[in-house]
């Protein structure tokens, strides 16, 4: 717990954390100081002047809150006429050269200029002279489109490329009211985190080419989720909407703050994985290429299991702990080999030292905790030995690999329970569609051993069943997330005390030491 100190805001005593600036310290107790340029991940710049606050008996009496550390006994004034007038004046000056094209601006609805205008300004424009003209619709690369006229020159995007990615593609050129954010000629944005500038931009100056004009933000439902693009488990917002007569569709992911995992940002690749939740989905169950009902498909699987001499069940490194546990238990029930082999999810050398990991699966740590063997040799031996392969959403051929397995699999009966169409579903005699991670909930453990839980966000019109539900229909004992936990708690020591409902928002760091693993 950080040291606390007491100060006064508008005469009322509040207790805040020390070592923070006034915006963060006072913001933590629910009092917002308006600001545009300050961002906790990028530090204080002090250029927007929106956060000017009065300090009673202060020297100077007027300070930018972003640059001012909270001090014991400080008397901060936010509601004096003087401060309110300053906020109104700054807003007026921010807006005189702003195009106010909110009706066609993607930021409308989540724009700081709009919010602050409503909160602090609300006056009619006094601008009776021509506005400054700047460039619009500039393609900055990496899917970022810039509008210089909407820009408030807060410099967050510039500081992001300098301080976070270290690539420095952006700069503010020119002086005075002709100052503008730009790239160097012929040197567009070129980093794997560039789209964060869209999230960072407090106004509609930085927009995503992918998201532009697709959806008004107030129509979208914004649910919390966890990116399954790699083993980092970055926290995201899943922004989705079911338009009239249509299905629930995801329009974008945005970074969600979590100091323990990803800070304030996510990578572009992960951000774009939302498309995979909408597209290439397996929607119909089929047996031998003929469309069947869910019950018929389940029946066909049951039959195959009865007929099989040596079945093998494949667990996905993307599935939740609960799903993995349910499949493992089902395998035990049917005397099947259980494998988590999933080397195809790993893109060697693709990761970096920031957020991107080589492993493109979200819960490989789960397989380790539950002691599901993911070894290639073990898998190949079991595969040679078996006559039935049932994959529980494990995409054996992800990233165009494992081609040598195809002839081997061709000789086996393959059942693909899958959220997406892929090369394995092409091989399957029985295919059965299941929900993907934006549609179910559960717990996953990231590469660093942080246990996080998430809830379903998207509800499709014809909602596919969860892997857990499939295992139940096949006769497994674990039929939902809750039923999975007693078994996992007794088997996995590090999970012994975990209450899935009580996992903190930022996740739970599991002790991943050797002795912490399953005994036997």
């Amino acid at each position, binding site marked *: 717990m950080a040291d606390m100190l007491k100060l006064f805001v508008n005469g009322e005593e509040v207790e805040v954390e020390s070592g923070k600036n006034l915006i963060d310290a006072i913001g933590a107790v629910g009092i917002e100081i308006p600001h545009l340029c300050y961002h906790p991940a990028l530090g204080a710049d002090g*250029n927007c002047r929106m956060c000017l606050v009065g300090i009673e008996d202060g020297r100077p009496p007027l300070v930018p809150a972003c640059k001012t550390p909270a001090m014991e006994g400080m008397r901060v004034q936010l509601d004096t006429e003087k401060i309110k007038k300053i906020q109104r004046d700054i807003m007026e000056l921010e807006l005189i050269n702003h195009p106010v094209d909110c009706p066609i601006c993607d930021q409308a609805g989540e724009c700081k200029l709009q919010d602050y205008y409503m909160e602090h300004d609300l006056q*009619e424009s006094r601008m*009776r002279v021509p506005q400054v003209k700047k460039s619009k619709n500039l393609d900055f690369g990496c899917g970022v489109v810039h509008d210089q006229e909407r820009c408030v*020159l807060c410099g967050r995007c510039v500081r992001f490329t300098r301080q976070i990615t270290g690539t420095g593609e952006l700069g503010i050129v020119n002086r005075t009211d002709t100052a503008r954010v730009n790239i160097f000629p012929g040197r567009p944005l070129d980093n794997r985190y560039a789209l964060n500038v869209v999230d960072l931009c407090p106004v509609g100056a930085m927009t995503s080419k992918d998201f532009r004009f697709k959806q008004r933000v107030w129509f979208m439902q914004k649910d919390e989720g966890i990116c399954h693009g790699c083993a980092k488990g970055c926290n995201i917002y899943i922004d989705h909407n079911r338009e009239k007569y249509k299905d629930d569709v995801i329009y974008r992911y945005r970074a969600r703050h979590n100091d323990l995992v990803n800070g304030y940002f996510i990578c572009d690749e992960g951000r774009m994985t939302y498309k995979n939740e909408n597209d290439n989905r397996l929607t119909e169950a089929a047996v031998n290429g003929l469309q069947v009902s869910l019950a018929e498909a389940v029946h066909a699987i049951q039959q195959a299991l009865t007929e099989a001499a040596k079945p093998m069940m494949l667990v996905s490194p993307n599935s939740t702990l609960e799903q993995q546990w349910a499949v493992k238990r089902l395998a035990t029930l049917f005397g099947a080999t259980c494998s988590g082999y999933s080397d195809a999810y790993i893109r060697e050398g693709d990761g970096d030292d920031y957020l991107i990991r080589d492993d493109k699966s979200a819960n490989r740590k789960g397989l380790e905790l539950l002691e599901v063997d993911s070894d290639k040799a073990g898998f190949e031996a079991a595969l040679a030995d078996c006559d039935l392969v049932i994959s529980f959403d494990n995409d054996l051929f992800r990233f165009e690999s494992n081609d040598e397995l195809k002839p081997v699999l061709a000789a086996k009966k393959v059942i693909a329970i899958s959220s997406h169409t892929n090369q394995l579903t092409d091989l399957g005699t029985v295919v059965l569609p299941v929900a993907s991670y934006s549609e179910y909930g559960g717990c996953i453990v990231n590469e660093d051993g942080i246990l996080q839980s998430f809830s379903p966000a998207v509800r499709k019109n014809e909602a596919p069943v969860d892997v857990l539900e499939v295992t139940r229909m096949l006769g497994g004992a674990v039929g939902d997330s809750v039923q999975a936990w007693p078994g996992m708690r007794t088997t996995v020591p590090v999970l012994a005390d975990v209450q899935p409902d009580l996992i903190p928002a930022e996740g739970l760091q599991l002790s991943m030491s050797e002795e912490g693993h399953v005994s036997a």
Partner: protein
Amino acid sequence: MHEMEVKILSEKFDIENAHLLEVAKDHGAYSTLEKLFSMAPGDVTEEVKKSGLRGRGGAGFPAGVKWGFLPKDTGKPTYLAVNSDESEPATFKDRYILVRDPHMLIEGIIICCWAIGCHDVYIYIRGEYTSQVKVLQAAIDEAYAAGYLGEKVAGQDFRIDVTVHRGAGAYVCGEETALLESIEGKKGQPRSKPPFPAVEGLYGCPTIINNVQTIASLPFIMKNGAQAYSAYGTEKSSGTHLFGISGHVEKPGMYELPLGLPLMDVLEQVAGGVWKGRKLKGVIPGGSSTPVLTAEEAKTVMLDYESMAEHGTMFGSGGIVVLDETVDVVKLVENLIYFYHHESCGQCTPCREGLGWMKKITRKLLAGEGTMADIDLLRELCDNIEMKTVCVLSAACTMPVRSYLDKFRHEFEAYAKDRANSAPEKVELQRN
């Protein structure tokens, strides 16, 4: 030479080739070094404090006190940055020192370095001073060759290296922290203070920034003592100052005068009075950013920091501009705003957006399209912008503009197309 004038800083200005080391030495350059190195650095600072020497860049902060702000034993180097950006309109004093007596400046640098324990000096010279920079650099080269700069200054175990850094044409780089940013190779934008440069300046190290004239005043103080210097001027505004008198006077030029003289006496006796027998309209006392004085106010003001403050203006840079009765104040204000708008670094919202707005409103007035409400708006904008920014550039524009609006409002109203209307249009605030 008028009897009011003195020759302290300008002693060698009229000597031919005084910018050359040989000539300068014949006239006493570097003669204070022996005394300097016999003194403890702290005593040098004390002597400068006693002299009452104030910063000649415009703010008038006591030089010795500024040096005293340097933290002790930081383990970091201390830097000296000599501000030679002289960009304030109507200011032309430092250029005389740079060209006519650069060795006085170098000697002053040595004195300052010894006092504050500095070994690395940057002279930030405005980019437009192309011939001045050549003379200065030649003088520095000569000083190096003669052993006044370099590893062993005047044979002492004390190193001083001087680097001349040329600006690239930005007025704002005369602001001390923008100047530091510029030296560091960054865009010249002022830094938020605190931290102040004395604590965290150039490359994050303790830094003293002094104006050329401030540093150039040190050899005289060193040679003749603090009392000899403070014998000139007033009690609080001691010493002499190089005044650049321009505008509508008979004899414009650079004059060295002790502080505290009556402005009108100087204008009439030294500068020959308002030209062409015209009447005085007003006086800009110390560079374009200082609020204007009306002819009436000019009668009672003295050329010192205190008297200027009492008259609601500032001493500034000593750049006095005389305005005769023919001056169109609105055109003058348009020119003034044009300059400060052009030179705004664009960092802070109020200055970046506001000055352009003010310029357009003024132009609208000049075009005969303006209204009484525009004049009120212009006046209000001065208040809304001023002191809401990181640096004082916005105030350098709004302070004088406000003074013209308040003191010569009728001239603005004469441009308003609705001036006949009795009640000025008022923009009502709409509130929910």
